[in-house]
């Protein structure tokens, strides 16, 4: 990192000079900020560091994950570590996996304006509007698959003019798809029954009794099927 290569950013209105190569998260720490809210996995998997920003001279309000986005000169930054949203309570065993599921739990999806603001706001580049529309059509599989990479950061919900919370809809879709459409996996169920019947108990019990040498011999000579 070149030491002279600094940029100016504004964190919640306060101006700081920071190295140009840092992510927003590291730049804020460099500026003296210790995260309590607004930092999580630091690797793009948890959505805790949802951030909105404008750059100097631009009208555009943009969204990003602070841990994944490199600072730009003249950036105005605000973090959105929490998005107010109602998650519906349901017993997944009782939800009907048909075209009524989404409208029953999240009727506000009918308000979708197809403006695509959610898709533009998504730091994961998910086609958010497309899955909201799929949910509106009752297409559980499409909603589940299109929303799969969602990390629940909340930026889509914050920007939606129809006040929809897309990530909650995606979550319901994925659970329904896995449980009812894809269904349980047969060889998993078979193996569970074999374990319950005690099929492997004797062999494991025997191995638990082995001394280290015998175990090592077994391990070194075990058959590999890859």
């Amino acid at each position, binding site marked *: 990192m070149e030491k002279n290569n600094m940029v100016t950013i504004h964190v919640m209105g306060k101006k700081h000079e920071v190295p140009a190569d840092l992510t927003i998260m590291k730049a804020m720490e460099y500026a003296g900020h210790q995260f309590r809210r607004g*930092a999580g*996995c630091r690797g793009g998997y948890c959505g805790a560091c949802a951030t909105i920003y404008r750059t100097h001279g631009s009208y555009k309000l943009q969204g990003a994950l602070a841990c994944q986005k490199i600072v730009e000169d003249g950036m105005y930054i605000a973090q959105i570590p929490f998005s107010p949203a109602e998650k519906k309570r349901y017993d997944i065993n009782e939800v009907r996996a048909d075209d009524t599921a989404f409208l029953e739990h999240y009727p506000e999806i009918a308000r979708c304006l197809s403006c695509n603001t959610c898709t533009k706001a998504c730091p994961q580049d998910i086609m958010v509007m497309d899955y909201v529309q799929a949910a509106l059509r009752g297409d559980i599989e499409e909603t589940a698959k299109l929303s799969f990479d969602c990390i629940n950061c909340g930026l889509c919900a914050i920007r939606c003019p129809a006040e929809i919370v897309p990530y909650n809809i995606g979550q319901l879709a994925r659970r329904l798809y*896995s449980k009812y459409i894809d269904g349980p996996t047969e060889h998993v169920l078979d193996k569970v029954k074999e374990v319950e019947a005690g099929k492997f108990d004797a062999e494991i019990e025997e191995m638990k009794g082995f001394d280290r040498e015998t175990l090592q011999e077994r391990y070194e000579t*075990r058959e590999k099927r890859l």
Partner: protein
Amino acid sequence: MSGYPDYMQESLELVVKTRPSRVGKALPEMNAEEKEKILREWHPDFKMDQKRELKIGPSKGMLMPLEVVDNLESHPIITPDQIDLDDIDYDVDILIIGAGGAGLSAALLAHENGIDPEKILMVQKLRLGDANSKMSQGGIQAADAPDDSPVIHYLDIIGGGHYENKPELVELLVKEGPDVIKWHEELGVMYDKLEDGTMQLAPGGGTSRKRMHSCKDYTGLEITRVLVDEFLSRDISYVELTSAVALVMDDEGQVAGAVLYDMDSDEYKVCKAKATILATGGFGRLHIQGFETTNHYGATNDGVVMAYHAGAVLRDLDSTQFHPTGAAYPEQIVGQLCTEKLRGRGAQPLNKHGELFVYPLETRDVEASALIRECYGRDNGVITPTGMRGVWLDTPLIEIINGEGTIEREFAAMFRTFNKFGIDIRKEPMLVFPTLHYQNGGVEINAETETSIPGLFAAGEVCGGVHGKNRLMGNSQLGLYVFGRRAGRFAAERAKTAKIGELTLSHLDRYEGWLEEAGVETDRKAPILLPEYRRKKTIEHQLKLL
């Protein structure tokens, strides 16, 4: 256009040049003597000047990384006179500390075993579900394929752990594996399947079968968010941004809850509980030997510290897992995980000459040692602009072997992350170096997930014993659910009959006594709750290995 600086292009050309001749090729796996030798010479665990013996407590004499000993040989952050134990803020049956995979599983099972949702309290330092559990990419092991069995899984684990694992815990891990996958599917976890409806399974380092179940490379994310959704649907109580800072005990030596710290108001609160479950995760953010880490922001060893203050027995904390492939470039993501599934699906580690130098699926400790040797012993690493060294991980091979589109489909997270920094991993390799990943040891538990102190249960990375001295890929994910569920079940059982006596924090005074007796003079305090990255620490790298 290349995502790498000009000076690396010569080496990248060699990677491209040797690629056709490497398809389907692998160097042989090392034999037992070779493994032993490379670990002794190159694994950070064997760098003895980076360890010392713990001077105090029931596990006195145990050799551990300096950073862990420092963390344990610290003053508790509160003194008993600061806390009024008569003023109880939460009076519950079960307190769960930590809201990752283990804690969430424990909560669901405690509920299913008869505990009212409002008599369970989950506290979490950050947000619900924010944990290493969520960052797991490559997969979860479970021996459910027709040509696999828990017996074979058992042997893989014990050998991989250097025969130091606690056998009864390994037995539970392998036998409950298939049931965990079944449970996940009932809850609605979307696993990757083949066209015939069977699981898509991949190998991992040290596995003798294809046993890795995955949800793209968002495996932990998918499982965790389903558990969170279920947890919220059941209205189980929880408080975010609230950290436990000390366990509360009673006059009979039982654990009886915890002192909590509200990270918003900076106030202490008291939780009284009939059973307490530690599910606080690991210590990656202690940056053992200066290594960068794959870990979550909150992975600061709090659980082990609190348990040790209360007198719990520890084990296997001499052993630390360094994941072979952390990002070495670009600088912004140094240390972040490049999943083992990449190698499971055909990516090869290569030196700067574009040559193979190690079997790609050795156990993690051996693989990591081979990468360190290649960079520092043989000087065959590529040096980054910030002075780190790394080797190539040839990801374009994945598409050559498994077909075009495989990377976007199966490695959406990896593809996305590197793309943001201008590297297309379908076309160019990644530059990688080992990174601090997992604490193999921790608080000792038994089959019922009880620690050595009555009333205190533990599950997940905070415990030791399951993985011995080296963990295999996908077994930490499995362990979260196997032992998390057990913790919920057994804690519920205890809560139905336990009688709690007079509350006390006298164990903190006892701990101060141990420190004084051992002559530990320090101003360190623990648990530390959050790592320190402010100001110049933001851009410091201080690898002590070399």
